[in-house]
């Protein structure tokens, strides 16, 4: 996968031609009055890949998605979707993409199946074809038994699955998912991830936003980290971790009265064994190639943390390094 040279240069350095990428953005900017929601971002999405925008709430992810979905005009910069300009070819672009918005916008006044059929009609599908696809998609998202139910009694996970089924009714080559699993329980999330993974295997290009690093790691071939309207880094999850974090992390928890007295002490003590030490309100993170060795050094120095844990670095650590903040606040 990483044989593709693009991954090594990072998204900002890419000089890809708009023709070969499904989405092409340069200096893309969105302002609401004085507020800049998206600030001159560059990215390209290649056919068949799963591309993610990772960042906290308010980073500009949804505004970016709405511009790609042709429901929000850009303020400045270049944007092409499927090789076309949204401002001119909005209806043509929308005909070929699928959109899963952050909030479910299911039609409360009709049944589960009718939601899919009428949505297919919006895409000018013949009625029989819309019905055939609706039944297929209900099966795909495991909602066949609820076909005649109204929308209201469905669980959050079911509504999400129905929204995804709806976004697939026009067999889109590009699927936009804005926070697809926010607010779902772990079981519902895994079921959704599984369905999205299958779509990807069938060759559908996925573009998603998330503030869950596990979701980004599970689903994305490549992602950009967004913070305060800008892209601050990009690459595959593995590359980002390699570039911006150590191999392992030692998580230490101390009794709260000890934490202040540790100032500077840990850095001294770990001299050479750790790349970096981060203090969070509830714990201390020691970034080290060898977490075990760092833990031994801490204990040898007579410090007694209430707990200590060695784990691999994640995108959460990358985000912390890049922005000095956690993803979920």
């Amino acid at each position, binding site marked *: 996968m990483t044989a593709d040279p693009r991954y090594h240069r990072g998204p900002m350095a890419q000089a890809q031609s708009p023709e070969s990428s499904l989405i092409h953005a340069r200096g893309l900017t969105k302002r*609401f009055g004085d507020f800049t929601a998206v600030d001159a971002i560059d990215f390209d999405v290649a056919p068949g890949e799963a591309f993610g925008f990772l960042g906290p709430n308010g980073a500009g992810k949804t505004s970016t998605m*709405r511009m790609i*979905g*042709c*429901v*929000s*005009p850009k303020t400045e910069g270049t944007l092409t979707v499927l090789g076309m300009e*949204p*401002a*001119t*070819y*909005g*209806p*043509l672009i*929308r*005909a070929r993409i699928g*959109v899963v*918005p952050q*909030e479910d*916008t*299911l*039609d*409360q*006044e*009709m*049944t589960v199946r*009718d939601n899919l*059929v*009428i*949505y297919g*009609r*919006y*895409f*000018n599908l013949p009625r029989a074809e819309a019905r055939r696809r609706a039944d297929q998609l209900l099966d795909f998202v495991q909602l066949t038994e609820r076909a005649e139910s109204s929308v209201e009694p469905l669980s959050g996970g079911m509504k999400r699955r129905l929204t995804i089924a*709806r*976004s697939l009714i*026009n067999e889109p080559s590009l699927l936009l998912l804005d926070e697809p699993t926010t607010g779902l329980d772990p079981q519902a999330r895994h079921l959704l991830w599984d369905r999205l993974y299958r779509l990807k295997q069938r060759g559908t290009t996925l573009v998603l936003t998330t503030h869950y690093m596990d979701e980004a790691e599970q689903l994305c071939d490549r992602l950009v980290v967004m913070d305060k309207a800008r892209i601050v880094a990009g690459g595959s999850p593995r590359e980002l971790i390699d570039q911006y974090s150590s191999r392992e992390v030692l998580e230490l928890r101390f009794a709260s009265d000890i934490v202040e007295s540790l100032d500077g002490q840990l850095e001294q003590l770990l001299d050479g064994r750790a790349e970096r030490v981060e203090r969070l309100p509830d714990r201390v993170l020691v970034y080290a190639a060898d977490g075990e060795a760092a833990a031994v050094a801490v204990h040898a120095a007579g410090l007694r943390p209430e707990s200590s844990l060695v784990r691999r670095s994640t995108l959460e650590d990358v985000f912390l390094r890049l922005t000095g903040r956690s993803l979920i606040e």
Partner: protein
Amino acid sequence: MTVLSRVSSPFAFGSGRARFLIERNVYVYRRTYMTLVSGFFEPLFYLLAMGFGLGVLVGQVPGPDGRDISYTVFIAPALLAASAMNGAIYDSTFNVFFKLNYEKVYNAVLATPLGVGDVALGEIIWALIRGQLYAIGFMGVVLLLGLMPSAWGLLAVPASVLLGFAAAGLGMAATSFMKTWQDLDLVQLVVLPVFLFSGTFYPLSVYPEPLRTIVQFSPLYRGTDLIRRLMTGALDPVMLLDLGYLALLGMVGLAIVSRRLDKLLLK
């Protein structure tokens, strides 16, 4: 004009897919058809109460051409006009407000090839189709009761649809400026006086002079005049003024809606 409506074209009437939004409403009403059917009874109850109950007290009144007609014949066209207006107003204000702000139906629709113009046009046409159904039903009752002296009266059905178009256009334009449910109180505040003072229950001659002129600007007055003249056979060139005025109001409403919806939905 190109088929591809631009995202923010100033007078976009969509990509010709408004019919799918109408189909959506048909899907919805397939399940709640009683609500649809019940709308037919509203003008009927009024006709029975006003025409037969009150009509005995009132007796004869002067028709549009000055000849005396029975109060029931006088009021039937006005009730047809009023119900066409009320139905269109309700659909284009309360219903649209709810869909716009709570159900987010349009947000989902706009993720598809349908544009803002399709949404506006689709909703207005749907309101007119409903209005047309009610008008036909009411016309049936009027014929059954022998309350229509002139065969020109059959044209009252399309005429009531034109009145509905004016009302729906203006109603939707007003709704696009409303932010809370309380703003919708304004609708009642406007509709009730229009309903009561548009020559619905008695001839214009009852009003004192300055009021008589103001009333003539009311869309419902123009619609009632048009429909009453058709149903009583009192044809007159002033009907052209009625027609033009209603068509103009509807177009103005539609133009405002198309602009405003862009602002509301495409941020």
